[in-house]
């Protein structure tokens, strides 16, 4: 036992001595975070500078909040913010409950073979490269595609669905669910298996039917998992991944598809305007940071489950 009165450093030294190997194993991970996540942070400096590669980060002239002002005053600002929030919120709204429902359904299936088969099939899209998934989507939603054919049969127009700004979010969110539902359900299935079977037995004896059991045993049982994942997801609300959007969008759908991260990509990597895109990225990260804190706060206040 370590004396609680001992100073932090002496406690740490003793702990390191005792668990030398464990610390050694943690070292590469620590190094990874320092090198790839903390050291590069000094690069955010360029968000406040008129960055020129020949002058370097420290040598470039300081321009204060110029890039932020430019971004907030830009024609695209409201549109980017709206699209980012809407795509995120829709993804969260439809995409977050989907794996939970799926896990509950899977959990109720009694036939082992059927259960495993369904699980394996639903995991598959997750392991496909995003480029392939998007290639399939582009193909299926082209004017002669399979999905377009179905839409047409249901009375929709025969046109390139991906070129229509009204459908972009639907395609994005729906394909996201299709891709992630199986993988996302794993963690809930794991949580489900941790629920004490005795609770179900007791409920059965008390006369609770399946639905009642789900409502009063299963759901409360996996609630902490749900909350933690929700907090993590809320923290990412402003950071819609740009890869999938870049692979799917095109100028006619920018109106509903262009989000902050794709804008940063175009500004920074396509147009080499590193400073501007850093400023936008910084803005984005700050909002995300605040959202995580807020979500955690709300969660700890209401359900007493939180990340920290």
């Amino acid at each position: 036992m370590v004396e609680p009165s001992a100073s932090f450093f002496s406690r740490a030294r003793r702990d390191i001595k005792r668990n030398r190997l464990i610390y050694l194993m943690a070292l590469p991970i620590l190094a990874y975070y320092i090198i790839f996540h903390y050291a590069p942070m000094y690069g955010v400096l360029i968000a406040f500078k008129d960055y020129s590669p020949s002058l370097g980060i420290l040598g470039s002239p300081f321009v204060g909040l110029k890039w932020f002002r430019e971004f907030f005053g830009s024609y695209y600002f409201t549109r980017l913010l709206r699209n980012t929030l809407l795509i995120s919120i829709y993804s969260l709204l439809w995409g977050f409950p989907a794996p939970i429902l799926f896990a509950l359904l899977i959990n109720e299936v009694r036939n082992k073979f059927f259960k495993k088969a369904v699980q394996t099939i639903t995991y598959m899209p997750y392991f496909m490269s995003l480029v392939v998934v998007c290639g399939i989507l582009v193909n299926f939603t082209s004017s002669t595609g399979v999905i377009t054919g179905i839409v047409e049969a249901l009375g929709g127009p025969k046109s390139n669905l991906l070129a229509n700004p009204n459908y972009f979010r639907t395609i994005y969110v729906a394909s996201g669910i299709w891709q992630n539902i199986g993988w996302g359900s794993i963690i809930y299935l794991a949580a489900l298996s941790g629920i004490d079977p005795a609770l179900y037995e007791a409920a059965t004896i008390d006369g609770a039917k399946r639905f009642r059991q789900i409502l009063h045993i299963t759901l409360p049982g996996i609630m902490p998992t749900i909350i933690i994942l929700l907090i993590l997801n809320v923290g990412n609300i402003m950071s819609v991944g740009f890869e999938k959007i870049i692979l799917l969008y095109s100028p006619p759908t920018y109106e509903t598809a262009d989000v902050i991260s794709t804008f940063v990509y175009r500004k920074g990597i396509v147009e080499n305007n590193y400073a501007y895109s850093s400023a936008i990225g910084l803005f984005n990260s700050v909002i995300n940071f605040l959202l995580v804190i807020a979500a955690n706060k709300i969660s700890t206040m209401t359900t007493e489950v939180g990340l920290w």
Partner: protein
Amino acid sequence: MMKTERVHCEPKGLNPRAIPLGRIADQYFWEVTMFLKKKSRVVPALLLAAMLSVSGFSGCGQTGGESAAPSQPASQAASSAPSSAAEAEPAEAGVTFPLAEPITLSAYVQVPPYMSLILQTFNDNHVFQQREKDTNIHFDFVTTELSVLLASDSLPDVFIEFKNYPGGSEKAVADNVLVALNDYMEYAPNYSKIMAEHPDIAKELVTDTGTITGFGTVQLGDEVPWYGPTINQNLLDELGLTMPETIDEWYDVLTAFKNAGVEQPLNPSATWGWKVGFEYAVFTGAYDVSYNFYNENGTAKYGPVEPGFKEFLTTFNKWYSEGLIDPDFVTPDATAMQAQAMNRQIGAMPYSYNLEEISAPENGAQFVAAPNPTLERGGQLHLRNSNFHNKRVDSFAISTRNKYVPETVAWVDYAYSDEGYLLYNYGIEGESWNWVDGPANEFEQTMLPQSLRGLNKHAVLDFSGAVNPGGLQDSELRHVYTLHTTVGSLRTPYNAFPEEYAQASAVWAKAGDDWYMPAIAHTADEAASNSAVFTDIETFVEESVIQFIIGTKDLSEFDAYVQQVKAMGLDTVLENKQAALDRYANR
């Protein structure tokens, strides 16, 4: 994008979607490393790790060059190259080749992908080998990204194609990165001679202030257009139609195609996307606008906001709504498109003169060049695909770290001599080319340097004398034996230029190009103010134009759209363009 201004697009090897992902990573980790270096307290191990990541990332950037070229035909062929060609050149103002002492220069170069598959570095190229023999100057090639070289303060001696420097080349001279070559022109008699003899070309080789920031890749004659509308001749014949010349005739032809069951009567996308066709005024030209900046008798204009563009959009919107235009043209798939063209699913499309790529005569799909449409028969066009004399601006620039500027200048100047013309474009006589009896064709004559004009013989690429253990095709062997366009030189575009290409070009060349925007250059301030607003404008215009065509935005909103573009700062950009145009005229 502003950068397209002075960079000329080649029909081959152009890939606008290629994204230099390695670049930002390189840049970033280099910065981190430099920062760590300055902080002496940082653990050495950390520094090492950061360094490793730097090399790891630069490695990614050049895998194309390293993994390729399983066999090395170039180096093997080198040993058998005739050594007689190494004769001393005349003394040129203090530099005599070969140099008494060999020197080595480091040269920044990004070998184009189509060459990096064949050559590991330019040292495998016979022209470079020959020049090294003749001059005693050896090049070590640096392939690190330019921004990384600049950030790490380790400039090479020479830049082979200096571009994308923020603020432009003149700024690079001001920033003490590039040497202004005006004072060294005495070492470049051939280049000076070209500039003196061709004032119109000389205009493209200097900046507005008359600074020579680097050597360009120069073409003496006017290049005929290599891009324009094409149409399936077999379909025309089968339906008893004649070659359309006006927009109305095009409408009739496309309607006939549609009625005959052609899936995509017109696919406006070609290989590089729909914008390219509009930029080269393939259909917009009929309305005297292009999807770009142009120079209407000395006035800089931006096509997409001109009234003519509205008329063009009205036409295209009508065509689109009647099913004459491929509904998927916004998301083109180049490979699929070629197959579709060969499969008679496409009736007409803008394309380059490489028509064999989309034709399958045995299948009834022979594409031919169609004249750029006009509004009325015999109408005069002002805009079409047109090209600069300077193919690559600053394709050979010299850095301030270079200790041998006169020697370097003399080295590159040889490329602009008559012999250099033959060496760079054709290689070594007997290996990769031979003289053929009879004068060169009409086009080629205009490209030739003075002493080669009017001869009763002309050079023709002929690889029968080439050593080719790798079994490369002629088009690939070219990159081993010749140095076509990449490094500053006097070039001919007509190396193995087939008759069909010339025919296609001749059809497109009927349209005028007098409104074409010349090779203007912006000052650093102008470039900054342009890029602050124009990229946003460009995006807005791009999406609006498509929406107008496919009908998700009604054409009655065109005026509001123009107002929005102006509100986003188009007038500033136009003022900058006008200023640059005026300066260009006064060069």
